[in-house]
């Protein structure tokens, strides 16, 4: 007598599946390039940075690079970078929000919306040397706008205390790519505000201001803050624009890292790596905040 389990006759009667489920590994083929990219340009550099941060110039293990982060000039560089990132994130965030509001809730013509979105797509990626040159050509000491203001209106910006090569000048330049990024990120959130919420609030006796204070802004707050954190990160990692514009006159952390690695008189790659690790930590904290706020926003909007 066979001890094989008897096959279930019903199983044989099952019709073959019209479309068999694909093998699990096939599902991953599409994302393999992403993982390779992430490994080569995120994981590998991060590990290299982390390892390098614990080595001195002779390759010996040391903590001196991290103690070097406490140097007043480096702490100042972090502080200036955080300040400029905060200023441009808040300024660009508010400006971008208002512009996105105007073309979504504000009901401006569709053509204006299309134009703004196209401009934002381009401008949010327009940074580095070309942007610095564009601003020097317009708002530099002999820039077009500076000269026009002086000749036509008799206003000399530089006599008034403005300088393109100062903290505020650099912040102003950053705003050129910061607010369009805000427009791009916040527009979908504004589109997600349902007309019925406004109508329901009005129907219950609320003014438009009350609706915004009690309903719309609380719903948008996670998205606004999340977008501003994104803007913060965008400014925090910027290098080429600041370097091209100020030539290292403003002590940003990215410029300090550059000077440590490039091999001039400050050459100390270990310290550069430690500085970069510090940046990764700051950015990771910011991204964690962004993720949490985003999750909260999505939970509210789930129907």
């Amino acid at each position, binding site marked *: 007598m066979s001890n094989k389990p008897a096959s279930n006759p019903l199983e044989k009667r099952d019709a073959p599946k019209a479309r068999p489920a694909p093998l699990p590994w096939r599902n991953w083929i599409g994302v393999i390039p992403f993982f390779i990219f992430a490994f080569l340009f995120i994981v590998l550099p991060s590990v290299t940075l982390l390892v390098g941060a614990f080595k001195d110039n002779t390759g010996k293990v040391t903590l001196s690079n991290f103690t070097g982060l406490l140097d007043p000039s480096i702490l100042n560089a972090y502080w200036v970078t955080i300040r400029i990132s905060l200023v441009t994130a808040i300024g660009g965030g508010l400006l971008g929000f208002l512009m996105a509001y105007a073309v979504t809730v504000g009901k401006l013509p569709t053509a204006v919306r299309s134009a703004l979105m196209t401009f934002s797509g381009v401008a949010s990626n327009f940074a580095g040397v070309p942007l610095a040159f564009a601003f020097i050509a317009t708002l530099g000491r002999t820039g077009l706008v500076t000269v026009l203001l002086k000749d036509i209106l008799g206003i000399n910006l530089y006599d008034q205390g403005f300088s393109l090569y100062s903290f505020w000048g650099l912040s102003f330049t950053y705003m050129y790519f910061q607010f369009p990024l805000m427009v791009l990120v916040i527009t979908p959130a504004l589109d997600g505000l*349902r007309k*019925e*919420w406004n*109508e*329901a*609030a*009005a*129907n*219950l*006796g*609320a*003014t438009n201001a*009350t609706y915004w204070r*009690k*309903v719309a802004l*609380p*719903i948008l707050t996670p998205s606004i803050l999340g977008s501003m954190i994104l803007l913060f990160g965008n400014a925090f990692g910027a290098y080429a624009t600041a370097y091209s514009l100020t030539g290292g006159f403003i002590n940003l952390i990215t410029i300090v890292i550059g000077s440590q690695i490039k091999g001039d008189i400050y050459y100390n790659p270990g310290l550069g790596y430690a500085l970069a690790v510090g940046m990764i930590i700051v950015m990771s904290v910011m991204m964690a905040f962004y993720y949490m706020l985003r999750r909260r926003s999505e*939970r*509210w*909007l*789930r*129907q």
Partner: protein
Amino acid sequence: MIAGFETVNTGTITLDSEDITQKSPNQRNVGMVFQSYALFPNLTIGQNIGFGLEVRKMDKADTEKRVREMLELVHLEKHIDKYPYQLSGGQQQRIALARALAIQPRVLLLDEPLSALDAKIRVELRLEIRRIQQTLGITTVYVTHDQEEALLLSDRVVVMSQGHIEQVGSPAAIYNYPATEFVAQFVGQLNLIPVTEVDLKKNTCKIGGQTVKFEPSPNRQISAEPRLAIRPEEVHIGTGEGRNALRGRVESVLFLGSVVRLRVNVDGALFSADFFNERRITLPRAGDEVIISFPEHSCWLV
């Protein structure tokens, strides 16, 4: 327009003898329930219901009391601290109703409140809406495309087409005495059978070679291509005294659950006849010759 979200081009809207045409939506004290619930997702159920009261700066204790009363009314007391996304569609719509009622509006507007819900919930909730409306005795304007819903819930039905009122009347009047062809076709099922040799003095016409007597309708215009209108449930199988009787052949028998529909060909004209289903129902089969009958007061000419 009643809620104030659409601009009025002509005419006025009067509520409690007050002209509210130019009033902004937040000054009308009109409660509204939206098709998509429109609950505020960032507020809890209690805060949603209390929103209108808070706007009116009602005392906190009174607000809480009213919120609890409203939750009791819609039988959702336990959900006061939940967020809208934690409730089902039917529950959300009940909360929307409670929120609209909490402000004690002068009139309640319901804009297709059940269309986003599945059939079973819809049937349950419409009875619930009727119960609440009857309990509070509040004037309610209910917009729906569902004829059954309109007939079941209303004391007075307004049938509209292309922005114009076609007929105003009780549900029974709308169904049994439709004023226009649109109303007759829109509300319920209707046979519209082309007829010939119309005699308006004798109130007779012909379908093929067979004569039919119909009820006169003096105020109704009869079109150039007259048709006999009759509801499917008025058509019976077999003859009867004083009834129009027509010979025909069964084309199909359609089983619809509680109703069985026979399609009977009478000299080229197709009649639908509805019968309540029973377990032991015996009906003719497709191809059988039958006589269908209906009283003259059940049909009219359009």
